[in-house]
């Protein structure tokens, strides 16, 4: 797409939406939000970038191959359940601890895994779909 306006503001949009998606991810445990919604927003961010500046730019912004990202997400989600196996003898029983007064737990790791899987999954075929444009 050769719209000048879109090209100019695409990166700004991208940053805003991506930050928004991360914020939604992090607040999910206590306010409406969470890994799924954050992931969808994050995928939307990259999709905007791809539409405006081309798939190659978006791929480079993603740093990793989408499928690799998906795999990492699955692994992180799986790994977040292992501490539960060690302590409580039950997979995916989330463990909690305190770090400088903030309660942290393996739930955030699980949600992060969800985030990665959704972003990677949606982008994997979306990039391919957009890449074969205008033939």
């Amino acid at each position, binding site marked *: 797409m050769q719209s000048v306006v879109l090209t100019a503001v695409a990166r700004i949009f991208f940053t805003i939406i991506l930050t928004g998606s991360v914020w939604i991810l992090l607040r999910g445990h*206590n306010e409406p939000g969470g890994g*799924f919604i954050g992931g969808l927003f994050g995928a939307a961010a990259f999709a905007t970038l791809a539409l405006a500046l081309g798939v190659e730019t978006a791929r480079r912004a993603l740093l990793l191959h989408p499928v690799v990202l998906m795999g990492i997400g699955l692994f992180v989600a799986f790994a977040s359940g292992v501490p539960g196996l060690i302590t409580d003898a039950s997979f995916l029983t989330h463990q909690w601890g305190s770090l400088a007064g903030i309660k942290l737990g393996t739930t955030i790791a699980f949600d992060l895994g969800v985030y990665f899987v*959704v972003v990677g999954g949606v982008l994997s075929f979306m990039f391919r*779909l957009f890449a074969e444009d205008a033939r």
Partner: protein
Amino acid sequence: MTLVYALTIAAYMGCGLYMMLSRHAVRMILGLALLTNGAIFLIFFAGRMGATSPPVIPRGIDALAADAANALPQALALTAIVIGFALTAFAAVLALQTYRALGTLDVREMRAAESLGAPDAPSSGRVKSDG
């Protein structure tokens, strides 16, 4: 209001089914999407709609207010929406590739399996008995 919701679900399911019976691949996918939405609405509806405040516990209190919405069907529906989306996306890509491979979107013309013929052909020259 329950009647209105039930009517909406019925409209979703009916129109979705109608579109799924089409022979055009893309229309079938749209029908699938409608059916999925209808099913998700049904799940949410089964959890008793009516409450308007979200199931988020305010700071300082330990339990959810009694008039908050039902959280469990929301969790189920959320899962269903995401999986439905993945499935629909896959179906759309499949339709695209089918067109590219077979050159047609009409399922009547996708008959590669039928061209193999029927398993029983009437045998020529029946064997008779004697006596």
